[in-house]
């Protein structure tokens, strides 16, 4: 596809990297020549210096041939204007990033009235991710498929867990749990496990199940499934606000620690039921005073990576809290991964991820049948949701008779809202959606799973 990206900031460059790798033709527009140049040389894309909302600049970038324009500059209004002009000039799909909380309730209205394809609010998206995580305290990462009916959870096999040295076939027979382990990370290696695969200590497993079954599974293997009732958030930014707004109705007690007095006042106005503390979240006494020891979840969401990492390490040390840590710099991700920080989130990935999902779904109409796509393990394993068409060559044949490629697993079948964890006798019927986990990237259609 021909894609124009306006704005070469964090998200812009991440998107450029991902989309260009997936084979799209990208043109980037940025006012800052140097930034544009850096992105244009690093990834194989075309760069233009100028204001993305200008018609002539868009023309120069080839708006008439473009399939999609993504506006991710600093300014919400500029992003919206870019999309409006692009809509008129090129009649293409448009995606804008709008992060001002004032608009958050009106986003669907703005999107529909202005004819945009998608509006993304990065802070809101991040908060949504965190809240999903806190719903499943045992998981490191949570994604949803089939419109939220199926959860894809990642969790770690702790020492002494009944899962240790357990062949996967025994999960359903011995534990009587209807979950499917679809990927296992062991150190640097990633496996798509077969039935005889034995789990080891410190493996990170990805499993697919409905929310209810996932909870059942966690209970049986002795991972804490107690619902989280108290959350402490350090840093009172927009993400924290959205997060608190999502957690409070779930009956959680939310404590937010924020340095800036003015912001504290704002938050206490917006969140009457949250406990807003004015103070430095890195102060040990303050954390103790506010009862960090008894917290069940701890979210380090300040603007400094170092602070966040340190705070989460401290929280892990003094409490049993589930920790969520925000990290901006991707460069050190291996080190951070080795730190036992619990869940680590890279905000710009979250935004990029959402947009990528849309782009992939867009291809749907052009020739691919991918409904949603998640990268379970960065660059190595993907989970794809496909729609089964009427003429699909896989429809109606029991799974055991299909000649499937290696390193591939069909995790679940969603038949009109009913979730089936497939065995060998199950079939994929037209109208179903199926989730496929694979290490082969680049699947565009369900028939690609055949040899």
């Amino acid at each position, binding site marked *: 596809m021909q894609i124009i990206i306006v704005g070469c900031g964090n998200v812009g460059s991440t998107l450029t990297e991902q989309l260009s790798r997936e084979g799209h033709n990208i043109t980037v527009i940025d006012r800052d020549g140097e930034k544009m140049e850096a992105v244009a040389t690093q990834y194989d894309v075309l760069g233009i210096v100028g204001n993305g909302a200008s018609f002539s600049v868009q023309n120069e970038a080839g708006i008439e041939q473009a399939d999609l324009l993504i506006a991710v500059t600093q300014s919400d209004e500029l992003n919206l204007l870019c999309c409006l002009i692009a809509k008129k000039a090129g009649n293409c799909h448009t995606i804008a990033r709008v992060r001002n909380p004032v608009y958050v309730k009106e986003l669907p209205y703005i999107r529909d009235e202005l004819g945009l394809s998608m509006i993304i609010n990065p802070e809101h998206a991040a908060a949504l991710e965190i809240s999903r995580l806190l719903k499943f305290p045992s998981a490191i990462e949570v994604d949803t498929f089939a419109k939220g009916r199926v959860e894809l959870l990642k969790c770690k096999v702790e020492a002494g867990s009944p899962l240790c040295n357990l062949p996967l076939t025994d999960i359903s027979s011995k534990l009587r749990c209807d979950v499917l382990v679809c990927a296992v990370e062991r150190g640097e290696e990633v496996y798509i496990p077969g039935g005889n695969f034995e789990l080891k200590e410190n493996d990170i497993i990805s499993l697919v199940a409905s929310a209810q079954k996932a909870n059942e599974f966690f209970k049986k293997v002795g991972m804490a499934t107690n619902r989280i009732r108290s959350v402490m958030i350090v840093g009172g930014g927009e993400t924290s606000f959205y997060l608190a707004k999502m957690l409070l109705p779930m009956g959680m007690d939310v404590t937010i620690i924020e340095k800036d*007095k003015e912001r*504290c*006042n704002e*938050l*206490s*106005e917006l969140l*009457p039921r949250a*406990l*807003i*503390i*004015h*103070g430095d979240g890195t102060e040990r006494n*303050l954390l103790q*005073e*506010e009862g960090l020891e008894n917290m069940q979840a701890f979210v380090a969401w300040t603007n400094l990576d170092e602070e966040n990492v340190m705070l989460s390490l401290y929280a892990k040390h003094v409490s049993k809290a589930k920790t969520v840590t925000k990290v901006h710099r991707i460069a050190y991700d291996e080190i951070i991964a080795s730190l036992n920080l619990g869940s680590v989130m890279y905000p710009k990935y979250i935004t990029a991820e959402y947009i990528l999902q849309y782009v992939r779904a867009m291809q749907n109409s052009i020739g691919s049948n991918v409904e949603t796509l998640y990268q379970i393990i960065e660059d190595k394993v993907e989970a794809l949701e496909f729609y089964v068409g009427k003429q699909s060559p896989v429809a109606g044949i029991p799974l055991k008779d299909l000649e499937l490629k290696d390193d591939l697993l069909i995790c679940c079948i969603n038949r009109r809202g009913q979730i089936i964890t497939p065995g060998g006798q199950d079939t994929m019927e037209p109208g179903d959606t199926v989730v496929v986990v694979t290490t082969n990237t680049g699947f565009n259609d369900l028939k690609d799973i055949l040899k």
Partner: protein
Amino acid sequence: MNCSIIRYIICRVLEFQALFLLLSAVVALIYREQAGWAYVAVAVGCFLVGWLGKKLKPRKNQFFAREGFVTVSLSWIILSLTGALPFWLSGEIPEYTDALFETISGLTTTGSSILPNVEALSCCNLFWRSFTHWIGGMGVLVLILAILPLAGGNNMHIMRAESPGPTVEKLVPRVRHTARILYGIYMVMTVILILLLLVSGMNWFEATTLAFGTAGTGGFGVLNSSIASYNLSSQVLITVFMILFGINFNVYYLFLIRKGKEALKFEEMRYYLLIIAVAIGLITWNVRGMFDSIWEAFHHASFQVASIITTTGYATTDFTLWPVFSQTILVLLMFIGACAGSTGGGIKVSRIVILFKLIKNEISHMLHPKRVNQVRFGGHVVPKETWRAIQVFLFSYIVIFFTSLLAISLCNLDFTTNFTAVATTLNNVGPGLGLVGPLGNFDVFANPAKWVLMFDMLAGRLEIFPMLVLLASPAWRRG
């Protein structure tokens, strides 16, 4: 201080007073009473003074908070002084102090009387007594604001000084239109009540005067037995309407502009109705043995609770005979009072609720010293200025209360009488307990004590600060 604009406005107030007095003269004409001449005489006098004083245009139209407070408190004092004259001139209340007490009690919608026998008064005097309730309920200056373009654009200062409650909300962009809407609602509700009372079997005179007393949440009746001798349907009607007039008028405006859902969510109203329900429940349970049936107990309990919390002060029964528990509840209700922005008096439900929320906040602040927390009321954050003003209000209220209590204790009456006399006047209720109960009257006090209680009534109606401003020296500084 811009004295000329104050003089100008007070002259307009006098003109209105003349108009009000003439209405009473008309009643005298209908009933062919000699006392009517007193009204005509005072009306002419007021009109002449007002008309002449108005001729001299104010030098400057400047009008600020200071002028607003002084105008309002002076207007009320002058309205009281002139309003008392007909009682005195007609000879039906021989002492001027008593006449003034009766007028202030009327204007401030208190309803405390010094008359042992109300039925001896002529109809025009009775009408005037009740009519002062109606004027005082919503406020004279608000009425004038609704009709005349006053004081340039700074009418808000007047509105703020005269309207009860911690804050004054404009309903529409212009103060004048806001005042019109408020008076419109007030009048329509009064007319509805008059018609309903007529249907329930009262005659025109009773229906009108009692409706005025109910609308202004005043409490002057036309019979010695207050409301007790009317039939059940009239009593129930008055109960319901007392409660309705105690609700913030913004609620009715919301209904008018078809925002019924928002109106029902009005936080102050919900607390107000909750307090009423709890009080009625407790008293019904407490007095159930004194009446033939639980329904009769419920009826009297609800009438008394409505009458006291809205600070009206009608009575269907002598509640000084009730158990102490019930009496104590009634005294507590006197202090709580009605909603802000209604015609009722007292401390006001919104202030009480905000104060309770402040306590809650303070406790939470002690447990989490660094907590940032704000008081919310009606879905909005209460600004610091507002709750600070409420705290100061409460303390001034207490100071005035106990100073008055000390002062009138010189009359050497019993403590219950003294305490409830101050409570009932400062909260604009009407009857108290002991000697000033529903069947007693305030004639038991000596003249100096009456003056103290008169001040209390005015301070209570204008919510203390306008009266204090009048006494404070900074208001009279030059420049």
